[in-house]
């Protein structure tokens, strides 16, 4: 089959690789119909997240059609049109039982690589480094999906492929981040980053009852999208002296009730702090440039929630004193996709959310290298590039 392979830092190529096959009795094989770039892929493409190996097939956000099922798959069948959350759950461990799907205790074949770093390993994910499982990614014609019954969700006829695609990762990540904010009617939520996840966090914060959503980014077209799609107020951080000052003014000096960081370790900012972080990161003295995280902690109102969706490594200079003195709650996780799928289908069917607006570039898989280039460099107003294998 054809697949997009990582061959080294900033080296991608569409190549011919072996087809996946059923290996375990609960496996299914999905023929990918749509798969999308994700900002978190950029961390290992750029070499900031370790654990990729030459030839790894990348991609973790996809939907498609089941073409093969294992002996013990009972709820799904060949021909089902399905969306698959990016983290792999088993459906039978304590974490899956408690809907903490990305923390699944049995689906990471390389769990021993994560244990020393995280204390306890996460579940596996498609196409996202070997410590995270080493599974083949979704930017390919076919993908093996373990535990097909719990990881494949049959898409209702009234939901299109393009709408279903983002239920794999961007929507549940955003929705989880919004849910972490414990939104009460009247709340103001600030969101750093208006990529796919940031937009979905802002959009679903609105659905959960937020009165105001303020989105912070530097790309005019993305900010315009946030305003148009869910009535967000926007802050272009390159146009203000200080994001914190701008937010303070917009909220009558109180600060947002909750802040969502949807940027992560390669955040951009302005001023001295940014230069310092960038320099340290270039020298590999620091893996992360945590500008948005620090801004969110500073800007949040006292007693508020900071919800972290961006991917970080071992961030240094985490302002713990600010968290304590302001009584903040910090919540974070890799997404619990399986928990949210039915609710996300409802949102789409009720007309509350149509995530297909994230698609700015629709390309054949053969153009995936160019697609990532456009996506990474935010050319042509790119929010998400999707590939059709």
């Amino acid at each position: 089959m054809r697949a997009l392979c990582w061959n080294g830092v900033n080296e991608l190529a569409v190549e011919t690789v072996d087809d996946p096959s059923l290996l375990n009795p609960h496996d299914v094989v999905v023929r990918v119909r749509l798969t999308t770039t994700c900002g978190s892929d950029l961390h290992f493409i750029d070499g900031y997240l370790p654990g990729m190996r030459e030839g790894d097939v990348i991609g973790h956000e996809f939907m498609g059609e089941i073409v093969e099922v294992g002996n013990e798959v009972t709820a799904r069948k060949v021909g089902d049109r399905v969306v698959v959350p990016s983290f792999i759950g088993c459906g039978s461990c304590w974490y899956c039982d408690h809907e903490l799907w990305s923390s699944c205790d049995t689906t990471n074949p390389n769990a021993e690589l994560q244990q020393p770093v995280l204390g306890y390993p996460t579940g596996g994910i498609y196409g996202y480094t070997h410590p995270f499982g080493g599974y083949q990614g979704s930017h390919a014609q076919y993908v093996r999906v373990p535990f097909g019954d719990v990881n494949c969700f049959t898409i209702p006829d009234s939901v299109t492929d393009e709408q279903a695609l983002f239920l794999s990762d961007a929507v549940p990540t955003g929705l989880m981040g919004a849910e972490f904010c414990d939104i009460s009617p009247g709340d103001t939520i600030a969101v750093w980053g208006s990529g796919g996840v940031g937009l979905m966090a802002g959009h679903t914060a609105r659905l959960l009852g937020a009165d105001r959503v303020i989105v912070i980014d530097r790309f005019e077209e993305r900010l315009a999208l946030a305003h148009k799609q869910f009535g967000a107020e926007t802050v272009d951080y390159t146009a203000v002296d200080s994001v914190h000052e701008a937010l303070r003014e917009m909220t009558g000096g109180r600060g947002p009730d909750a802040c969502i960081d949807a940027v992560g370790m390669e955040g951009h900012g302005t001023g001295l702090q940014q230069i310092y972080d960038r320099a340290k990161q270039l020298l590999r003295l620091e893996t992360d440039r945590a500008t948005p995280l620090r801004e969110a902690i500073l800007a949040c109102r006292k007693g508020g929630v900071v919800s972290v969706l961006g991917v970080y490594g071992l961030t240094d200079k985490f302002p713990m004193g600010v968290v304590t003195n302001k009584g903040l709650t910090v919540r974070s996780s890799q997404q619990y996709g399986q928990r949210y799928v039915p609710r996300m289908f409802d949102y789409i069917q009720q007309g509350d959310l149509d995530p297909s607006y994230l698609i700015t570039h629709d390309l054949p898989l053969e153009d995936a290298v160019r697609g990532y280039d456009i996506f990474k460099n935010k050319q042509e107003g790119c929010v998400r590039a999707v590939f059709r294998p």
Partner: protein
Amino acid sequence: MNYLDKAKEQLTDLVGKVIDSGSSGGGTQTVTISCPRDQVEQFWRDPEKLSAVLGDIAEVRSTGPTGYQWILHRGDAESITWDTTLVAEEGSLRFVRATGNGSSTEGAEIQLTFRDAPHDLGTEVTLRVQSPIPDLLTGAAAFKVLYRARALLQTGEVPTLAHNPSARAAAH
């Protein structure tokens, strides 16, 4: 970060480091498996299940009612055979060197202890390894074995990357 290389090294090269001298200490790891204690204990007496969780590290064969032969794979080097006797005690199973079996594996022992976990969480299993197997089953590798055992007991399968069309064939 070099933890990836380090853990990989432990997993793939360890077998080659099996040495005569009884190096002290070994991998000790504990997991909770959400199955009743007798089922979990029974699991470790089954050579087929042992082979399944050891994967490419080793293979285990039955050589009698309490006899277990471990064939430790060492990549390109010749495999090492280790004959053991299973000693069952209250709350533990120990695989110890069978007598008349050369001095190179003196002191070697694999011990499993079982405790009921609180709040119906199942069974707490501790895997403790003493030389020469510790070189084979230290830290990361011992955890991998327990992780696979838990996966097999709880889900009926071991997570695998066999034939994964990811990475070059040589990198598997």
